[in-house]
């Protein structure tokens, strides 16, 4: 799946929550008069107050993605077991560099036109066009050409075998949703972003800035029995707690998250349903590998072994998460190793021994950058406290805002910073992008040729199990080098009212794409 960022968004959300900002859209407060005849699904996206655009090629925030997943489809999608299944494509085949997708026939866009191979080619090439300025452009960097075989067959040729491609063509944060060529060309990209037209279960009706997006059922949706409701309204609720209160009060049906602290109490409440599972995300300590003290592998190892990841989860996330054993979270079983790795395990004696080997003294002042004021900030505080207690080091916390933190991390203008990514579904997105010398998320100056070679090989390996084994090997190297300090993965939650049925929770919050099967009892 596309990378769903968390630094930025986590920060914004953190900020909003910290100050208790809360928007509960009008819809939730004033029931519509005709609610008796029309079934409206009232969903809340928490932590955001802004939708800038709904053009899949250029969306950036998770709130936008969650919304457009209800409006668009991609060639393929993930099912609840996290395997890739057909969506707009009926079937596909891969042969070395060539991927052939057979499209479903008779799929209608919301404007009534039919979706064909031409639209697929247009959508993907548009993403690759530098003029589009798509943040997802790099997802298709491996592609050499996109060809129309016939109106219902598309052939994508890569420069070399590229296993992650299929993940990048799912209806996730990849920008690879299929848009109608005619409508986009007629409106222009900017207007299309304000009046999106897709093939999805819901049609766009209107966006009331800062409040909600109104959608209505796409009557000609290609999945016969869906959608099961007439309308969907997606409210932008700045604070998670407000969405909880709204569901409890019967003013909201569904929420995209839950406040960690309140999950135990909510699970006991009959008026609300809670799903909680370890999410597809990775929270880690970003380190500047070029600057003292983290330019020294011994110092990095010492710090990594100097704190208890389980207690971090208990204190920071109120238990709603799992300690990290590497970069890849347990949600990707093929590449996840259950055997604890030495440097990812709390071991005070080993940590002190490593520190003795370091060329830097414990007394060296170290600043850990964090941002916002929610668990991101508390995470840094607990981390610093534990490491200092174990090693007698002089770590301290510096709080800034998310934009400032991101700017500094990208410029490697830090010593250490809390950071993380959310919604990576392909192991390549964790390992290659974060740790490869040319990885797009490696700004820290880390480079290990042996690891690079392994990760390049994994990109060419089409067999899931064999590929997984390669990533486990790569993880072992990373655990030796400790370029970053893995901390935890937090749980993904959804909340819904008892009148909602057919909502299937996923470890990544697909949200909008989960609306199709939802039905409401009165």
């Amino acid at each position, binding site marked *: 799946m596309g990378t769903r*960022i968390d630094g930025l*968004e986590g920060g914004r959300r953190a900020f909003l929550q910290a*100050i208790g900002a809360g928007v509960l859209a009008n819809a939730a407060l004033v029931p519509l008069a005709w609610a008796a005849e029309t079934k409206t699904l009232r969903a809340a996206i928490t932590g955001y107050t*802004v939708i800038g655009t709904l053009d899949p090629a250029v969306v950036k925030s998770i709130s936008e993605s969650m919304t457009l997943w209800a409006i668009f489809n991609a060639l393929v999608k993930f099912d609840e077991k996290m395997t890739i299944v057909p969506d707009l494509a009926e079937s596909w085949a891969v042969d070395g560099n060539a991927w052939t997708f057979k499209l479903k026939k008779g799929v209608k866009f919301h404007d009534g036109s039919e979706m064909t191979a031409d639209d697929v080619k247009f959508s993907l090439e548009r993403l690759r066009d530098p003029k589009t300025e798509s943040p997802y452009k790099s997802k298709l960097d491996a592609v050499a050409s996109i060809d129309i075989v016939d109106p219902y067959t598309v052939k994508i040729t890569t420069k070399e075998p590229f296993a992650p491609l299929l993940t990048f063509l799912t209806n996730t944060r990849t920008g690879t949703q299929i848009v109608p060529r005619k409508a986009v060309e007629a409106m222009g990209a900017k207007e299309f972003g304000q009046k999106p037209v897709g093939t999805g279960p819901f049609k766009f009706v209107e966006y009331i800035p*800062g409040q909600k997006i109104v959608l209505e059922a796409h009557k000609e949706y290609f999945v016969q029995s869906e959608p099961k409701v007439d309308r969907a309204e997606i409210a932008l609720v700045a604070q998670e707690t407000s969405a909880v209160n709204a569901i409890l009060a019967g003013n909201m049906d569904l929420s995209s998250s839950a406040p960690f602290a309140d999950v135990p109490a909510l699970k006991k409440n009959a008026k609300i349903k809670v799903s909680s599972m370890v999410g597809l995300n990775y929270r880690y300590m970003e380190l500047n590998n070029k600057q003292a003290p983290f330019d020294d592998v011994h110092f990095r190892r010492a710090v990594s072994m100097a704190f208890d990841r389980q207690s971090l989860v208990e204190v920071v996330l109120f238990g709603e998460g799992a300690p990290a054993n590497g970069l890849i979270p347990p949600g990707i079983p093929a590449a996840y190793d259950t055997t604890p790795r030495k440097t990812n395990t709390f071991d005070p004696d080993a940590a002190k021994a490593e520190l003795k080997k370091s060329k830097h003294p414990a007394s060296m002042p170290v600043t850990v950058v964090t941002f916002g004021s929610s668990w991101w900030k508390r995470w840094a505080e607990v981390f610093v406290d534990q490491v200092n207690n174990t090693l007698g080091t002089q770590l301290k916390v510096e709080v800034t*805002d998310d934009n400032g933190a991101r700017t500094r991390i990208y410029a490697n203008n830090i010593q250490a910073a809390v950071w993380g990514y959310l919604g990576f579904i392909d192991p390549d997105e964790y390992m290659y992008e974060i740790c490869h010398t040319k990885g797009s998320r490696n700004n820290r100056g880390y480079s290990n040729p042996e690891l690079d070679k392994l990760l390049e090989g994994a990109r060419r390996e089409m067999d899931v199990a064999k590929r997984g084994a390669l990533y486990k090997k790569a993880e072992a190297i990373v655990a030796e080098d400790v370029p970053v300090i893995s901390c935890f993965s937090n749980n993904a939650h959804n909340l819904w009212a008892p009148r909602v049925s057919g909502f299937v929770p996923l470890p990544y919050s697909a949200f909008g794409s989960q609306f199709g099967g939802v039905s409401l009892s009165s």
Partner: protein
Amino acid sequence: MLQFLRYLGQRVGGAIATVFAGAIAVFLIMKAAPGDPAMFVLGDFATQQSIAAFRARHSLDQPVLTQLWLWLETVLAGNLGESVSLYAGRDIAQLIGQRMPSTAFLGIYALLLALVSSLVLGTVAALQRGRTADAAVTLFAVVGISMPDFWLGYVLVLAFALTLGWLPAYGFTPPGESLTGALVTGLLPALAIAAPLAAVFSRILRVSLLETVERDYVTAARSMGYNEAFIFINYVLRNALIPFVTIVGLQVRYLLGGVVVIERIFGVPGIGSLMVDAAFARDYAVVQACALTFLVIVLTVNLIVDLVCVLLDPRRSH
């Protein structure tokens, strides 16, 4: 009259100069802050190239003074420009227009609540001077002013929304959609802003009334045998209101400051929350526009208050 007009001209000119100086100051301040709108727009997918392209497209790679000039040109053309990151591509004047009614409604709602309650409390306290009612009002005033508005917001939510369930905990219906909805959903945020204001106002009104009661014309009216209620309304209250209104006008600066925080806590989609969002997204032009709006409001209110004073007491224009 001519003198008054000259005074008016000077004041309006001064106000406009202040607005521009303020906007320029905000521009320079925001530019000095670390951060980059490209980071907000490109997020995790930012690369050296895409950042450079973004900065070039939005003239962010130009010298600060050039950028300032570009912005001033836009404004002088009667335009507020386009949002770069937060609502990328949208017209800022339109954004402000959409947000303005909520902020104005909340501000006026709070002001009215504060005024009405302080008129009642201040008058009662002055009339009952030295008795229990007076002491009660004084106590309210001191306690009221001792509660930070954001904390009061939470306490009100805890009491009226979470415990009693009378009012919604969060959310705001803009007055354009439903006036009743706005009155109901706006009550708690307006109360949180109004309580400390009401405390200040009622104290001022009480003192002002007490001072007026001792004036010669009141004594004169009393000696002419008018009844007390008539005297109070026509002589005391009317005269006491003048300094009161002046001080109320000066409070607009604090009122707006309160609105910014409270909008965030209750999720009111107003100018205040727009400005904070924009500041976090480093959407400079939007921040500027919001600051400009605030400056215009404060200065207009100040100007009106001053003009009222001058009209009442022409000596002031010298």
